[in-house]
């Protein structure tokens, strides 16, 4: 056991962070996506046989942490980790093609998980897929798909007579309507209506007997990736807060000399370090059997959610009015951390998942 980066990991972290800082926090565009492609980020988690780099979970964690530190705006979590994770786990030509286009930087897919009233349960969709003469007809409504407005390809889980069916739907297919709404982190999410969308047989990917497991694995990977992103964002936000406290005076002395504020900052650090530790544990457990993996991912997200809220709100508090202004960075980190809190499940949901996993404590 050893927590030091090896040479390759240190190099990866350095180059990715430098590149992300250069890209800044402008909305992601085609050029950004091209840069990601050239850095190898779009191929990073995938198996070599699919054209991926197969760099492993630790590498993905480092990339996500760099995202968090720099408040990167690109839909990497959605397209590569979540949707890409599903595509990579499904056999068949359609999924393979879609993955190849993602890796080549030609496509940006999105997975549509939640529905009105579903809360964080994704495994029993109300969206229906019915068989037609030529393939499938899809109807239903999916909610709050992060970066779903930027996707050209939607992966839509639906209930069919066969079971949990995964359908690949081009975003511009007839019958697809997207309502794209801004989210507080300066990005967007889409509410998506599928109204009698006609699909071919080939557009149903995967195997209904395995789809639940495929989705669960991809979601767990995305949960852990979001934890790493949050850890990076918290670490940077604590630095920003420290600099603010050290640089600003009140009543003739630096803010950072007030012990109550010092101790608050220390508590933020404690929360962040604990979040980092549990994220390490979840990364180390990503290849474990499914029940153990899901427990570890949920445990990590539970603690990361709590830390994100504490660090985010206290950073704003320590910044005073400045923390509330959108033009200063502290508030923007708080906004992204809050968005991450709402992804995949809040603390209570995650703790319930841990409990459902039975005796995960070893």
């Amino acid at each position, binding site marked *: 056991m050893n927590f030091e980066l090896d040479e390759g990991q240190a190099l990866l972290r350095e180059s990715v962070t430098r590149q992300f800082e250069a890209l800044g926090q402008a909305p992601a565009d085609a050029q950004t996506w091209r840069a990601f492609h050239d850095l190898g980020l779009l191929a990073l988690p995938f198996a070599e046989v699919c054209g991926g780099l197969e760099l492993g979970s630790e590498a993905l964690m480092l990339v996500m942490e760099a995202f968090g530190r720099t408040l990167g705006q690109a839909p990497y979590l959605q397209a590569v980790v979540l949707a890409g994770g599903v595509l990579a786990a499904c056999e068949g030509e359609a999924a393979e093609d879609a993955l190849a286009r993602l890796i080549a930087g030609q496509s940006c897919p999105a997975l549509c998980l939640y529905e009105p009233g579903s809360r964080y349960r994704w495994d029993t969709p109300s969206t229906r897929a019915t068989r037609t003469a030529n393939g499938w007809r899809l109807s239903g409504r999916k909610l709050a798909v992060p970066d779903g407005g930027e996707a050209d390809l939607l992966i839509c889980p639906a209930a069919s007579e066969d079971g949990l069916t995964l359908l690949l739907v081009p975003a511009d297919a007839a019958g697809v309507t997207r309502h794209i709404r801004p989210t507080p982190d300066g990005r967007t999410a889409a509410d998506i209506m599928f109204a009698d969308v006609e699909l071919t047989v080939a557009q149903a990917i995967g195997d209904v007997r395995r789809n639940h497991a495929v989705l669960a694995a991809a979601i767990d990977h995305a949960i852990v990736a979001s934890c790493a992103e949050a850890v990076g964002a918290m670490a940077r936000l604590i630095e920003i807060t420290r600099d603010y406290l050290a640089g600003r005076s009140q009543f003739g002395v630096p803010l950072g000399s007030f012990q109550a504020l010092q101790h608050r900052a220390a508590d933020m650090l404690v929360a962040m370090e604990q979040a980092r530790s549990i994220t390490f544990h979840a990364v180390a457990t990503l290849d474990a059997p499914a029940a153990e993996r899901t427990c570890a991912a949920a445990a990590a997200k539970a603690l990361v959610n709590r830390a994100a809220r504490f660090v985010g709100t206290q950073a704003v508090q320590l910044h*005073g009015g400045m923390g*509330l202004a959108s033009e200063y960075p502290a508030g923007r980190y708080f906004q992204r951390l809050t968005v991450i809190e709402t992804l995949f499940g809040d603390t*209570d949901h995650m703790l319930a998942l841990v409990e459902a996993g039975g005796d995960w404590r070893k």
Partner: protein
Amino acid sequence: MELRFTQEERLFRDEVRDYLRAHMPERIRQAVQDELPLPRAWMVEAQQILNRAGYAVPHWPVEWGGRDWTPVQRAILTEEIDRNACPKPLAFNTALVGPVIAAFGDDAQRRRFLPAIANLDIWFCQGFSEPGSGSDLASLKTAAVREGDSYRINGQKIWTTYAQHADWIFCLVRTDGSGRKQQGISFVLIDMATPGISVRPIHTIDGYHHVNEVFFDDVRIPIENLVGEEGRGWDYAKYLLGQERTSMGNVGFVRRRLDRVRAMATQSGLIANPAFRRRLTLAEVELKALEVTQMRVATADRGPGAGVDPTVSVLKIKGAELLQAAAALLLETLGPEALTAGFDEAPDAAFDGLDPHSAMLSAYFSSRKYSIFGGSDEVQRNILAKAVLGLGGAA
């Protein structure tokens, strides 16, 4: 000791409630209920409805529209306004500049401003904070130099709520820089239409535009706009701190938000989750305690000018905490839909047809300000440590 409302107090409460429900338009109450940002015109309309019944400035001197009510009556009014989702009277007018003009202004100022302030015919904003002053208000630098019959003002104010709506601004300015920083501060009124004033919006993390920077570049105002004596502005500002005590807990606001959480969670079925329900129940219990704390503060009211009552700090700290806790429950209630439950519309945009969900995530972010502005949590704890506990001299 009488821990219950008296019969008279209950009758008074019913009277207030009946008036509010009968006269406040449903569209305004619904918008307040949904925590949407209100258009300026609606806020004026609402305050005039209150003022017509004597509900805008009951704490003022009777000759200027005040009512000779008990502190309990005033607290009941505040609570009913909040509970019935009515907009509160604009605090800058009724709680801040009005009482100062009533107490320290001259007769001409009183006649000119007080009725207009009560009726929101003139909208005042507040120019106290400056960049770099933070909680150390007395370090302000905006300078007013006497030149004949006028002052020439240069400087900058920040966090000025509703400067974009305001007709006038009341400011603390430095008229003398020679003594202690608390000395040489004066209290002046400035017409926002005066040449040399510019307003820059500060967009906040709730997605809205409430606050501003206000710049003064060789702004000339007549000396008649000085309130009270030159150099005593700090005393008047401290006088203000003794005012507006009963609404500091935001009790009615918390109540509305928690009621909304319970209604939404009941509809969605989330209420069946005991872990969630305990958190909501605990917040409701804390709120009940805060209601009593508010009444304790109200009935301990020692009149204007009596200085700071430290129990007010309990109210302020706990009120902010509960408003934030309620906002967090709102977020939890929304589930994944929280992601898109806000940030959809520009402020003061066409108002009809706004998704009632649309302001909820904004409310979450906006709630952070309650522990920062109006005397931060940290300042309140300093006050408690010093005034109640006798602990002081801290860094």
